[in-house]
């Protein structure tokens, strides 16, 4: 026998671990959690049972957050670039030298061009520290890929219709729904914690599940009705559903009469779009279109037309979101139990600082002439204006967002920007691809080692959650708040940072609402009572934040801006001969391109697989488990990627999980594993309304890989 007992035998008598509250940062869902440590050893991370985002259960990625701390390649020292452009050689610098260089270049930009010529591309809760710095400096050009590469079209479409977009978490009342409609959103594979729980609640409650997806997704496997739609034809299906609901008078007549404008125009608009017409576009049988339309109408208002999340697909995405929003309006589900509840956050005062200076030019003056109804700054517009000698922007701060794998086909633009910009700063935890383009790389400690702004999301029940450090920062890495404050102080902006430690900000804010840092350090989360109802009262006529005060089935705003006031269907481009739609999505083990080097999650999924239908595999002589390279219609070749031959993908499409195929030399686990879909997206379909980068108009064929 062994000289030592087994691990389980040792654990039988082990003393409890120390628990520190955190908010998970592996994805944007931001579940409140507890970090279990013994000394400086991190054991595990579990969900906070009091948190509605997770109900005490972290997802696969959140559970694997342990690996974010133990990642062998973490950035632990500041780096300064030795060359420009594509030259990615760096030398180690002291914090003082690195921060001094950043401040010096920022001052030079302000002096020679104006502070408004500095832009920031940011993501996540720590983004607040750098948005604050850049606003205090004198610029409002602060964009998140979350808009133009993800939620922007959805939120714009719903905003135009209801006067409000969706937050995070989405206000979908799936636990109480009688019918759930998913259009291209693959809940389960995108593991948004409480979305998964409420979706499975729907299944447990025998709600009717309708899933529209070209691929037999996990959610499709749970559906009563799966509609295996031809890629890019969703608007045709949505128009046909509305055609049925209007022609058969199955809409919520009272709700529509009280709360909407434009019904007549909508009726006339959708009249030609019968299920028989839609069959020709979507490949979905007319009888199935009719049946599903009737089912969602019969269950309404307890019907969730899920708005989805990543919505930048075909360039007409705001219009697709509009079609979904109009359908939701007809079914009367906004503000209704089992449909969309009304979220509420905590009225949390901001820590008092002086007013920001008014920027000489706003992001709006740069973006709106190109994309008139962009409701938020557009990453791609900023980068388009950030390269070349006469570029508007002269400097860039990138926080926690890996642009080369987040924005489609962007590497050349980034190289040009890296050549001509006077300053690129990347603040990151790991040596992600984007850090290779930076003049200065500032190492942030992981979320497990830092404080960040309180989580205050719109939810069914308002609550505040605390992220506190459970472990000391690795190496010389520092929290984002410290980095932003140090740069600000060096720029003479100390009045915007009138505190020495970020805990002072958190404690001050908590005291304004009757709590304290001390309380949250124990509980991790504090719930607050709702001030307003979660649903409209029966017969209520609420005022919507649209120009008309009503739900705008017909959008005068779109019409005035020169766009279709009612969604129009355009037939998408079909794949060229021997090419396949390049479809992509999520896996429950990874978030974006940020977790592939996490050693825990790496073990669960070290590389992505390209899903190929058996007919295509046979035709190209490709066997399951072998490697191929994907070649797009412009001749761009991917890294080698392993094939999964499966019936679960459409014969005209391939599918792979986004975020793999890393090229950064510093990512020892992730580098060279799997294929990067973003690099294959050379055809970007811009949404003319808000600037979203449609990523589904790319096609690939295969090149066999020897050995």
């Amino acid at each position, binding site marked *: *026998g*062994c*000289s*030592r*007992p*087994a*691990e*389980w*035998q040792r*654990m*039988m008598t*082990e003393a409890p671990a120390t628990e520190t509250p955190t908010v998970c940062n592996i994805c944007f869902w931001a579940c409140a959690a507890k970090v279990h440590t013994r000394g400086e050893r991190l*054991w*595990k*991370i*579990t*969900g906070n049972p009091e948190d509605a985002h*997770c109900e*005490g*259960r*972290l*997802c*696969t990625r959140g*559970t*694997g957050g*342990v690996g974010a701390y133990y990642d062998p390649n973490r950035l632990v020292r500041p780096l300064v670039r030795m060359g420009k452009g594509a030259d990615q050689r760096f030398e180690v610098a002291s914090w003082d030298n690195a921060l001094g260089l950043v401040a010096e270049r920022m001052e030079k930009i302000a002096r020679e061009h104006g502070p408004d010529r500095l832009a920031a591309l940011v993501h996540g809760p720590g983004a607040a520290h750098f948005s604050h710095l850049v606003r205090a400096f004198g610029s409002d050009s602060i964009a998140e890929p979350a808009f133009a590469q993800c939620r922007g079209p959805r939120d714009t479409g719903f905003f135009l219709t209801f006067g409000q977009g969706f937050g995070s978490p989405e206000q979908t009342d799936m636990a109480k729904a009688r019918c759930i409609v998913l259009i291209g959103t693959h809940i*389960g*594979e995108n*593991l948004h*914690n409480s979305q*998964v*729980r409420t979706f*499975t*609640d729907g*299944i*447990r409650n025998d709600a009717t599940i309708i899933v529209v997806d070209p691929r*037999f997704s*996990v959610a*499709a*496997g*749970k559906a009563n009705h*799966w509609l*295996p739609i031809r890629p890019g034809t969703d608007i045709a299906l949505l128009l046909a559903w509305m055609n049925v609901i209007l022609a058969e008078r199955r809409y919520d007549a009272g709700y529509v009469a009280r709360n909407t404008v434009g019904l007549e125009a909508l009726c006339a608009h959708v009249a030609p779009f019968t299920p028989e017409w839609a069959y020709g576009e979507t490949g979905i049988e007319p009888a199935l279109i009719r049946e599903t339309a009737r089912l969602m109408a019969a269950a309404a208002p307890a019907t969730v037309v899920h708005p989805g999340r990543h919505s930048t697909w075909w360039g007409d995405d705001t219009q697709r979101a509009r079609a979904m929003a109009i359908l939701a309006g007809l079914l009367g589900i906004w503000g209704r139990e089992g449909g969309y509840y009304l979220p509420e956050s905590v009225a949390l005062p901001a820590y008092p600082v002086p007013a920001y200076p008014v920027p000489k030019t706003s992001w709006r003056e740069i973006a709106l002439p190109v994309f008139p109804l962009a409701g938020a700054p557009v990453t791609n517009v900023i980068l388009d204006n950030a390269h070349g000698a006469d570029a508007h922007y002269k400097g860039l701060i990138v926080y926690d967002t890996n642009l080369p794998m987040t924005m489609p086909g962007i590497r050349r633009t980034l190289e040009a920007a890296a050549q001509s910009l006077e300053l690129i700063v990347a603040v990151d935890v790991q040596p992600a691809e984007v850090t290779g383009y930076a003049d200065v790389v500032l190492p942030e400690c992981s979320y497990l080692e830092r404080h960040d702004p309180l989580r205050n999301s719109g939810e069914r029940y308002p609550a505040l959650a605390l992220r506190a450090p459970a472990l000391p920062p690795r190496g010389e890495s520092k929290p984002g708040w410290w980095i932003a404050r140090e740069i600000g102080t060096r720029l003479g902006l100390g009045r915007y940072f009138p505190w020495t430690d970020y805990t002072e900000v958190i404690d001050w804010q908590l005291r304004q609402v009757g709590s304290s840092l001390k309380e949250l350090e124990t509980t991790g989360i504090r719930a607050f009572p709702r001030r307003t109802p979660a649903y409209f009262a029966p017969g209520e006529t609420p005022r919507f934040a649209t120009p008309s005060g009503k739900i705008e089935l017909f959008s005068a705003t779109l019409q005035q801006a020169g766009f279709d006031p009612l969604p129009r269907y355009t037939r998408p481009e079909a794949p060229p001969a021997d090419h396949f739609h390049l479809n992509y999505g999520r896996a*429950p*083990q990874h978030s974006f391109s940020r977790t592939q080097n996490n*050693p*825990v*999650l790496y*073990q*669960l999924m070290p590389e992505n697989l390209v899903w190929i*239908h058996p007919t295509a595999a046979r035709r190209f002589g490709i066997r399951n488990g072998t490697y191929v390279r994907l070649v797009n219609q412009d001749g761009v070749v991917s890294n080698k990627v392993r094939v999964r031959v*499966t*019936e*679960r*993908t*459409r*014969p005209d499409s391939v599918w792979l999980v986004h975020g793999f195929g890393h090229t950064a030399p510093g990512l020892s686990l992730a580098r060279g594993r799997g294929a990067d879909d973003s690099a294959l997206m050379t055809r970007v379909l811009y949404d003319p309304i808000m600037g979203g980068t449609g990523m589904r108009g790319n096609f690939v064929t295969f090149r066999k890989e020897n050995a």
Partner: protein
Amino acid sequence: MPHFAMVIDTKTCIGCTDCVDACRMENNVPEGLCYDWVVEITEGRYPELKTEFRSERCNHCSNATCVDACPTGASQYWNGSNIVVVDATRCTGCKACIAACPYDSRLIMEPQGYIGKCTFCVHRVQYGEDPACVATCPAHAMHFGLLDDPGSAVSRLLATRAHYVLAPETGNQPNVFYLR
């Protein structure tokens, strides 16, 4: 004797492998090894398809062939229950239990050389807690409890839902149940 069972609802399981992850973290499972795993079974032709996910592990059999096969008594039932554990101090690493297990749920722990496996998180169960995989399942598809108690969640689910076990023909009387 306490009769523990795990009941997994394949209707709501999304195959996310969080159970695998949580087990590895909870039990300090070494790199490259796992005590549980997820199987995907897809049947049919596009678009007539059916997929089932199944989280699999040791079945903590009431009639465990691994316990019978162990020459040293290292493989044993914990505390008079059906939870099968391995006492590493008595395990010689002879692998007779690996050959005897119909579920391929045992593995060699490197570098120590003893045989490792799912313990139903007995270190948690002793305090009345669920195993880590059950406690973390974001789809709430996993359940754990006592079959001796007709009021327990597992007893009620098995009384009301169609279910199956893996390899029932072995006579091992497995205690991991799958709801259809």
